[in-house]
């Protein structure tokens, strides 16, 4: 049984002048250029910006998939920039869940196996692992499709399965990178409804990267606008 409970500062994110620069020959690409942000635990924040603005790069830094070239990313009080590979791996395994635009389910596995995958790396016992994966799939309404492979599902179903996989380790921080990008508007709304439900119900911190301003304004509590690797605007979404 998946249980997500509200907790104090768990899931809080703070970036301090974080930079991610890429060297391409002679030139330097500043994907993230000195961003300082404070995201409170349980907050639903949308990162908005055009393509190449640095929102996905910032999300990867918060997810611990990438390391900053400068500054700090502090999650739950721990600076990801100072963590070893093993510590970052443990962080990704237990503290953060990720959802991608392209769903990123493994095509050769069934939905159940896909959802079980993070639990395998977390060395959860087989019995408990299956129960958790089934419960996560039930939450996203896919209990009848557990033995199907991703290719046998619609885009919306695949994204819900990806959400179940992100949820199964009971993370305090959920990072969604354009989760509606490959979906029609109706399905996209379904997914965002699900995200908001978890955010409200379990107090899970949610960082949503999107270029669809209307959706962000409808669901997120706070909108952060990025351009050229910098924050251009950061304000509460009072219409939400």
């Amino acid at each position, binding site marked *: 049984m998946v249980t997500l409970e509200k907790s104090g500062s768990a899931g809080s994110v703070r970036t301090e002048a974080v930079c991610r620069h890429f060297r391409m020959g002679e030139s330097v690409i500043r994907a993230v250029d000195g961003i300082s942000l404070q995201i409170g635990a349980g907050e639903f924040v949308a990162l908005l910006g055009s393509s190449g603005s640095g929102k996905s790069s910032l999300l*990867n830094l918060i*997810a611990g*998939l*990438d390391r900053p070239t400068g500054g700090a990313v502090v999650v739950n009080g721990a600076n990801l920039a100072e963590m070893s*590979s*093993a510590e970052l*791996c*443990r962080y*990704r*395994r*237990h503290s953060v869940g*990720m959802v*991608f635009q392209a769903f*990123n*389910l*493994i095509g*050769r*596995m069934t939905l159940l196996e896909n959802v079980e*995958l*993070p639990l*395998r*790396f*977390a*060395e959860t016992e*087989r019995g408990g692992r299956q129960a958790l994966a089934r419960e996560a799939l039930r939450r996203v309404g896919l209990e009848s499709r557990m033995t199907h492979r991703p290719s046998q599902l619609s885009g919306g179903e695949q994204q819900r399965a990806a959400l179940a*996989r992100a949820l199964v*380790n009971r993370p305090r921080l959920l990072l969604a990178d354009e989760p509606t990008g490959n979906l029609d508007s109706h399905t996209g709304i379904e997914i965002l409804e699900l995200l908001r439900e978890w955010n409200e119900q379990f107090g899970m911190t949610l960082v949503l990267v999107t270029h669809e301003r209307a959706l962000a304004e409808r669901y997120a509590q706070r909108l952060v606008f990025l351009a050229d690797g910098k924050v251009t605007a950061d304000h509460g979404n009072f219409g939400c």
Partner: protein
Amino acid sequence: MKTGDLVELAARNIRESVLRNALTTLGVGVGVASLVAMLALGIGLQQLAGRRLARSGLFDTIAVTSRRSLRGFDRGPGGEAGPSAESRPLDEPARLEIAQLPGVLEAVPDLRFLAEVRYEGKPHLAVVVAGLPPSARDTDAFDNLQGRFFSSPAAAEVILQVQFADELLGVRERPDDSSAKLNVQTATLIGKELTLRYAERVSAEVAAAAAPPASGKRGGGGNPPSAAAPPAPPLSAMAGFSVVPHERALRIAAVTDHDPEGLRGAAGARLFLPLQMAESLHALLPAGLRASEPDFSNSPAYPSLSVRVKSPNRVEAVEEAIRKMGFRTYSILDATRSLRRFFAVLDLFLGIFGSLALAVAALGIVNTLVMAILERRREIGIMKAVGASDGDVKMLFLAEAAVLGLLGGVLGVAMGWVMGRLINAGANLFLRRQNLPAEKLWSVPGWLVGGAILFAVLVSMIAGLYPAARAARLDPVEALRYE
């Protein structure tokens, strides 16, 4: 990740690319099969040679002689002729003591004496007679026997060497003609009776009591076997025994075509008796003539003993123990060492040639896994995003390599076994056409099966090291971006 999950995921990934992985497995299988077939052939040849040598009785046998007897012969009276404290006669108590040594199968005396044979009223023929222990039946000297081996250790039977059989039949006269072969004529001898005339050693008391001698049928004509042949007066009355000629009727049990010079413990003999029966004849042995030794007793000294040990490995230790007892020993242990060295080198070379195919197969594994990394780049990114460590990814690819190696190893052993059977069948077909007996040239012992599979897994994992390290190094962000 837990080992069970690792193997499960690896096996699952292999099942997904059935054709490519099946071809890679087949490649490993062919490599292992070639290795197994080569080594099985080397082992088979080694075992064949070992069996042959063991049956020759040369490599597990120690010849034992007395130090004392030689001294007695070499040194004059008044010198250092007296036996040293350590030396002792090679008599029955000594034989029994040697037979009790650990690792000794048997210690049999080399009984050999000169005698005359009369067959169907033809003139007497001189011949060297030897006693054979029952174990001689298992040596290759009696592989090709016309007739049957002695029916019992004390049977009144003889086995003739084929050249001597020809002489008896009057077919040839030159005893050194080695062209003699078992044929229909020699077969006619089997079951017939011949008369053996020999010099019997009788203790002085018995001889005196029996005078005029009546201890059997006296020899009629022909040449006496030695100067000791005339019945009276006894040659060595002083030493406590007499020599009297004696005759004994014996049935011809078999004819052997073995070279008389090659027979263990019976070199030069052309007529063989069961050992126990030969002992019961009390024939005068050459060593018995050395009767001037002051402590000559009624227990006669043997000229030499043949000591058979359980395996050639024990020869050295047993030889040492016998030497400590005060006897001389001789064995051809060094020859077995050379043989072992030869087969070790042969196995090494066969193994190297066999491994070449496996090395090529290992390149196939590298190729398969590198291709898998390219195909599964995004999957590796996903695994890292959901919590896989670099080590997890590395271990997963290594496990896949190991599973490929395991499957290839099992397949290869099966293929190698079939190849070996075919080689054996082909070789035996050839041998049969050459009128030679079939041989087992090929052998797959259990350790080779286990070793080959383990080796295949090991080689596959070594081949998987580079792809696994490459997969582990993949940047998850880059990998997730990969289409």
